[in-house]
């Protein structure tokens, strides 16, 4: 992989991330990290009638994890929990317009993994222990 992943849009989302704020009264929130690289994220969702009305995140990480979180939270607003459950690695590839490659897949999927974890937690009132990776 060359430098295509660092398209201006990704850098722009990293430097000025959308929805990067702690939510005061979320319906559900979940913290995840990639211990090996130090990426760290908390995703907050406000859910009304099985629809994600608002979603935000907070945390630290590389351009790919933060940039993707910014794009994903924009994309997830207004989506149903069932739609979020169906999101997968292809969703991320479409959002960022490129396959991040094996070295960076964990960075690119951290936000989605956490968002899907939120949806599961909200519906089942317990942490999703079955899903390891996307």
């Amino acid at each position, binding site marked *: *992989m*060359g*430098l295509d*992943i*660092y398209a201006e849009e990704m*850098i722009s989302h*990293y*430097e000025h991330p959308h929805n990067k704020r702690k939510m005061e009264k979320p319906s559900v929130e979940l913290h995840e990290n990639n211990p*090996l*690289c*130090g*990426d*760290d994220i908390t995703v907050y969702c406000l859910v009304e009638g099985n629809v994600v009305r608002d979603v935000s995140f907070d945390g*630290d*990480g*590389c*351009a*790919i994890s933060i940039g993707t979180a910014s794009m994903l939270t924009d994309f997830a607003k207004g989506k149903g929990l069932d739609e979020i459950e169906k999101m997968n690695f292809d969703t991320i590839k479409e959002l960022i317009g490129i396959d991040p490659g094996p*070295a*960076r897949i964990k*960075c690119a999927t951290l936000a989605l993994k956490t968002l899907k974890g939120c949806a599961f937690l909200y519906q089942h009132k317990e942490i999703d222990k079955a899903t390891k990776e996307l």
Partner: protein
Amino acid sequence: MDFPLLDIRYDGKRIAYLDSAATSQKPAQVIESISDYYKTYNANIHRGIYKISEKATEVYIGSKEKAAKLINAGSYSEIVYTKNATDAINLAAIGWGNRNIKEGDHILITEMEHHSNIVPWQMLAKKNGAVLDYVDVDRSAYTLNEESLEKGLAKSPKIFAFTHVSNVLGTVNDAKRLTKMAHDAGALVLLDGAQSVPHMKVDIRDIGADLFAFSSHKMLGPAGIGVLRAERSFLEGMDPMITGGDMILSVEKQSSTWNDVPWKFEAGTPNIEGGVGFGAAIDYLNAVGMDNIQKHEIEITKYALDALGTDDKVRVYGPDIKSGVRGGIISFSIKGVHPHDIATIFDSHGIAIRTGHHCAMPLVRSVLGLPAAARMSFYLYNNEEEVDRAVQAIKSVKEIFHVG
């Protein structure tokens, strides 16, 4: 060039391999020695009453003799082959520690250790009810804090385990002086030589450390073979960690007697081809000369530090090169850019560097205060042109991330 991998061109560019602290590249002589073993004398060692087994045994033991000579150990019987340096430290912590560490005892290590020299002692301390103490790293000099060291030794630890060279900071600890201080305080010493033996002349008897660990794959040899070195009498007082064939003299139905050292620690068919390649790697290092290797690495590190030092957006960690206690490792960060992004951009320039916590989380997180760091590390095959390419890559990082 003796290193086939470094002649390969990807997108027209040679790889600038700046990750030798993780593992080294291998010269053709090492690759061929292993191929030659498989092609001409592949056999199990020790008990084969036929020529190729005798030759395999001779070359395998010969590699231990070479390893002993390289670090000025007394004889090959002081060289226990393990999987790697991690395995060697585990053998020390289990084989020596289980028997000798009692409830309330202190074990002293430092904040600059690799996880391989932290976790085995944590396990031992938990199991036997001992206390694990740390020597602090000075936050500006990036060397061991003298006051903290004295405090640690004042607790009369049973053992002081420390690294010869930090894999993150490049700090070269004065192993001889620290060993003497520990011995004066009544502590034994385990020295982690994973980052020193590949890069400098090491005289283990002059240093005086009781236990010494290092690894073949970081010094041009194959992976899967490393060394725990101790004097015969010390090894004789240790228990084996793995038992089975080859490590026994006799086996009765209910009990067994151990083979002589070092064989009592090498149960089962060992990594014979690993020993063969390791021996060839030591021959190669000797032909170049350890002093020449060290001199070359210091020159290239100086060149790199000078180049990076002019850039106020780049922060470099580790002791001042003028202090004379720094090896060929440079950890760095670029303002506002995560190390993983640095590494991806370096990769696009054909430069291999490592990022992360470098298996030294207490050091990177607590001492440097970083979630991760980028690291360049040099070896005998690196050159200044590769450093120039790294400087260009940093320029590219700054452009992409609008730094500056």
